[in-house]
C-alpha cells in the first residue's frame, strides 16, 4: 500500500492499480460521517465529544453558543442559550442519534457518545490543525473573561 497515494497519483503504476481495483467498501460506509458533519452546528456538537463524552443539553447549548458567537460562556444570554437548545433538541440531536453518533436520555436530557462517534471524530481530526487552534483561541478567551 502506498502511504500517500495522493502525492503519487501521476505515477502510471499507481493509476493502473486504482483502475484495476474497485473502491473499497469503506468508501460507502462514510455516509453517517458526512450526514453528522453536514451542518456547522453539528460539527461543533461533535467536537464537544472530544472534550467530554457526556453533556446535558443545557451545558451543550451554552458551549456551542460560546463557540459560535465567539464569547466567554458566562456571556451567553438565556435567549441565545434557549435558541441553541431548541435547535439541538428538535434537529441536531435526533439527527446524530439517527446516525448512531450519540445516544440521548430524555429523562436527564443528556447526550453520550455512541458507536459511530469514533469514526466521526477521526474525520474531525483530519482537519485537526485549524480546529485545535480555534479551540485554543476560545479557551484563552474564556480565561480572559470580561475583556472584549
Amino acid at each position, binding site marked *: 500500500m502506498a502511504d500517500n497515494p495522493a502525492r503519487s497519483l501521476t505515477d502510471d503504476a499507481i493509476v493502473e492499480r486504482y483502475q484495476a481495483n474497485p473502491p473499497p467498501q469503506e468508501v460507502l460506509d462514510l455516509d453517517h460521517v458526512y450526514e453528522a458533519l453536514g451542518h456547522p452546528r453539528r460539527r461543533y456538537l461533535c467536537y464537544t465529544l472530544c472534550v467530554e463524552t457526556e453533556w446535558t443539553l443545557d451545558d451543550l447549548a451554552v458551549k456551542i453558543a460560546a463557540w459560535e458567537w465567539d464569547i466567554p460562556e458566562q456571556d451567553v444570554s438565556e435567549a441565545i442559550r434557549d435558541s441553541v437548545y*431548541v435547535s439541538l433538541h*428538535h434537529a441536531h440531536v435526533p439527527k446524530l442519534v439517527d446516525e448512531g453518533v450519540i445516544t440521548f436520555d430524555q429523562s436527564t436530557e443528556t447526550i453520550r457518545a455512541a458507536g459511530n462517534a469514533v469514526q466521526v471524530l477521526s474525520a474531525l481530526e483530519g482537519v485537526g490543525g485549524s480546529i485545535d487552534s480555534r479551540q485554543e483561541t476560545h479557551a484563552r478567551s474564556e480565561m480572559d473573561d470580561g475583556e472584549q
Partner: protein
Amino acid sequence: MHGVRWMTASNDSGTSRDSASAHGRETKWNQVAQRHYEYDQAHGLTTEVVYAIADAKGVSPRDIRSPPLYDIVDIPAIEDAFFTPSVGTRPRHGSGTIEFEYTEYLVTIGSDGWIRIFETVGKSDSGPY
C-alpha cells in the same frame, strides 16, 4: 389578532393535507400565530418553527419538547427548497407552501418566509382572543 384565515381540507392541493381529508370531513383551521423567517444559518428554520408553535401555545419554546420536529418533517429539505439564497450567482425561486401537523396544530411554511400556525376551529375558544 387580525388576519384570521380559514382553510378547508377539500379545496387545498397541498400534499400534506391527506390525513385531514382522510377523516372524510372538512376541517376548519384558525390561525393563532405567525412568524417571519429569513435565511440565517445561525438561527435556523427549525428554531423559528418551534418558536412559532410556542407562540401559539403561549409557552416557552423550551417547553415544546415532544415530539422533536425532526420526527415530523424534513426541515433541512424545506430550507434548501425555499430559502437557500443562490446557486453561484443566480438566485433560486422555489415557491409554494409546505403544510404539516404538529400535535394539535397545523403548521404552514411559505416560500415567502411566513410560518403560520393554525388550530382547528372549536379549540380556538381557549386561544389568545
